[in-house]
C-alpha cells in the first residue's frame, strides 16, 4: 500500500545583523519572520510567533539555521532554533488534535 506520509518541510533561517542589532530571520516564503536577539522586544517576538503559528496551519515544518559561526548570537540562535523546532512539533500536534490544520 502506498504511504501517504507527508515529508516535513524545511524552512531556512539565518542570523542577520543590522546596525549592530542581531536577529534570526526565518524565510517562510511569503514574508520574513524576524526574531530580535540583541534587544528585549517581547511584542516583536510575539508577532513573530503569531506568524509561525499561522505557518504551522499550512503544515508541519522545521527551521534550519544556516551559516552558523561561533559568535555569541550564532550560539543563541542555534539553541533558540533547536528549542523552537521542538516546540513547533508540539504545537503542530496540538493543532492537529483540534483539527486546526488546513487540508
Amino acid at each position, binding site marked *: 500500500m502506498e504511504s501517504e506520509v507527508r515529508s516535513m518541510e524545511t524552512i531556512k533561517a539565518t542570523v542577520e545583523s543590522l546596525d549592530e542589532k542581531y536577529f534570526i530571520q526565518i524565510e517562510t516564503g511569503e514574508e520574513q519572520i524576524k*526574531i*530580535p*536577539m*540583541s534587544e*528585549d522586544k*517581547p*511584542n516583536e*517576538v*510575539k*508577532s513573530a*510567533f*503569531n506568524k*509561525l*503559528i*499561522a505557518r*504551522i496551519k499550512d503544515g508541519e515544518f522545521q527551521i534550519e539555521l544556516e551559516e552558523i559561526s561561533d559568535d*555569541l*548570537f550564532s*550560539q*543563541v540562535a542555534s*539553541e*533558540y532554533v*533547536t*528549542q*523552537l523546532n*521542538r*516546540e*513547533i*512539533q*508540539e*504545537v503542530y*500536534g*496540538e*493543532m492537529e*488534535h*483540534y483539527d*486546526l490544520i488546513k487540508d
Partner: protein
Amino acid sequence: MKIDIHTHTKKCKSGDAHTREISPEDFCETILSTEVRIIAITNHNVFDLNQFKEIEAGLGQEDVQVWPGIELDVQEDASRGHLLVIVSPSRVQEFSDVVEELTNGHHPDNFTATIDQILLKFDSITPLYVAHYMQKKPNISDNAIEKLVAESQNPSCVIKEVSNSISAGIYISHGHASIYGSDIQDWAKYEELSHDLPDLRLPVDSFEHFCLLLEKDQITINTLLDRKTSEELILLPFDDNSSLEIKGFNDINVVFGSKGTGKSCILKSIAKHYSENGIDTKVYESASDKLDDIFDTKGRDLNIDLKDYGIDYCTNNVNFLRTVGEVDVTSLSKYAAFFKVKSKNRNAKKILLRDIDPEDESGRKREFLDFNDATKTTAEFLKFLAGDQSVQEELEEEELAEVTRILSELFARLSRRESTKFSEWKEVYLLNSAIKIFRSEVARKTGTQAKPTTTGFRDYAMNRIEIEVNANKIIQNAETEIPMQCEPLGSLGSDKGDLEFRTEFQFQNGAITDGTLASLKGIKKGTQKNFVNRVRKILTHAYSDDLFQHIAELKAIEDVEDIDTVYELLLFRRYFALDGHQYSPSSGEASMVMLQKELGTDKDVYILDEPERSLGNEYINDVIVPLIKEHALAGKKVFISTHDGNIAVRTLPYSSIYRCHDSSGYRTYIGNPFSNNLINLEDDKDQLDWKMISMRTLEGGAEAFGERGKIYGDN
C-alpha cells in the same frame, strides 16, 4: 357504534337499482369496514332466509348484530306507502314463515298488504315497525300510523323513518319517535355514507334491549347507566352548607338552569372534591382578555433546554474568554546571558542533566487522555450491557456472555495501554521538571544564567489555540438553528383554518435588529450583540498581534458579566399563526383557542363553566361538541355548566343536573335524556320532562332537538 335499520341486499322490484345487490361475503366485509354494529336487512317484499343465515354466520364471530326485516308495500286509505317490519334474530324462522305465507304467489312489484294484515301476521312476534314518514317517500299516512299504534300490542315499537338526521330531530321534538337508515342504493358508497348514520349513545345488546329503550323502560336505562363507571359525589356547593349528592359519570355530566341558580358553585365544589382527592382539577372559565397571560406570549416563564437540540451551553468557553490573559515569551537576553558566561564551576559541569533538552510533554499527555477516554467509555458500556433490560431480552445468554467477554478483554488491554501511557507522560513530566529545577539550581548556586528550557513559543501558541477553540465553540453553538415550536390550537372554523401558537428561538448572531424578537433571559440586546461580535473578532484574530485588544473590548462590554453561557444570547418570538401567518385572534376566537387548549390537554376530569361564552353555534357544534364527546368516549369525566342547547342536548349527557329557583326557594333535579325525566332530589314525586325543560331553559334548545335529539340515534 352506529345503527342502520334500513338496508337492501337484493334487487327485488324491477325499479330497484342493480347496485343494491350484494353477496353475503361482500355484505359482511362492507359492514365490518364501518362503525355500523346493528344492521337490519329490509328488502322489498322479500325475505331471503338462506341469505340472512349466511350473513349471520359470516358476522357470527364479530360484534355485529343483524336483524331480519322486510320493507312492505302498504295499501291503506287509498294511499300506498312503505313500512319496515323488523324482528328479533331469535325469531327469524317464524318471521320467514310469516313473510312466505303473506307474500306467497306475489311478485314483489305487485305485492301490497293492509295494516290489518300486517298486524295479524307480524304483531305476535313483537316486531319493530318503522314507517316511511312525510318526506321519506312513499310515506305512510298519519291515519295508517295511528291505526298501527292503536292496534299493536307494542305501540312504543312503532317509529317513523325520516329522510335524514335533521328530520329525525324535528319529529322527536314534536313527540314523534323517529329514526333514519341508509336505504342503500349503491353498496360501493356505503362506507362513506355510513358516517352519517345514527350513533348509539347507550350500548344496545339486542333487538329486545333496543325495544325496551324505546319504551324508556327505567330499569333498562338504569341498568345501562350503572354499567358506566361513576362515583357518588357529596358536595357542599352553597353558602347555607346544604349538601348535594350527585352521581358523576365517566362521561358527560351537564349542569343547567337559569342564571343565578348556583351552577358555578356546583362546578367549583366538584373541582374542590377532586382536588382534595389528589386529582389536579380546576374550573375552566372563558376569559378572552387573558389570552396573552394564559399562553405566556411575553415568555415570562419560557425556557428551553439547549441540550435537546444538541447545543452546548458553552459555560466553560464563555468563562475562558472572559478571563484569559496573554502568555509571556522567554526573553532572548536570557540565552545571550547564558552563552556570555560559561560556567566554570566544576561541580556544575558534573550535573549533566542540566544540558539535556526537555522532551515533548503535550503529545504524551494527549496519548494518555485518548486511552483514558477509550477505557472509560468501554467500562461504561460494559456496565450498560450488564444492567440494560432490553439488551438482555434481545441477546441470548451465550451471546451476551460473548459480547461481554470481548469487551472485557478490550477493557483490560486498554487499561494496560492507559497505564503505560500515563507512565510515559509522567516520565517526561518528571524529566522536564528535573531539567528545569537543576538548571535553576545550578544558576542560583553559581550565580550564572541557566540555559532557558523553552522559547515560550509552546505555551504562547497553546494559549492562542485554546482561545480559537473556545471562541469557535461559542460561535458554532450560537449558530445552531433551533426548530420553531408549533402548538396546534385547532380550527377557527372551516372558513378560517387552523390556528397554532408558535415559539421561535434564535441566537443573536451579531446582526439581528428585528424588534419583534425579545431577549429570553432579559439580557440587553445591545450587550448580546456586542458580545457575539467581539467573539467573532476574537475568532478571526486568534493569531493576530491585536488579539488581546479584542479580548479587552469583550471584557469591557457593559453588563458582559450577565452572559455566562450561550443561553443568554437567545432571542425569542411567540405569536399566534393562522395557516402559517401571524394572526391576532379576536375576542371570540380567543375564547375558541382557550377552550380548545383546555380540551386539548389530557386530564381525567374536565370542568367547564359556560364554555359556549363568546362562541358561535357553528363552532360549538362542529368543534367543541365533538371534542367533548371524544373525551366522554375515552372515559373521562366531563362536567359542564351551560345555557347552550347544543351542548346540553346534542351531547346526550349521562347525567343532567337542573337548577331552578322560585318563590319557594332553590331546587335541584337530576335526570337524563334516556329516561327523559328530571327528579327533584328532595321529592322524587316531583318530576320534570327533561326534553321540555331543556327546550325551555336552554338557548337554542328547541333547535338542538330539531336536529339531533334522539335517545337512541345521534350523529
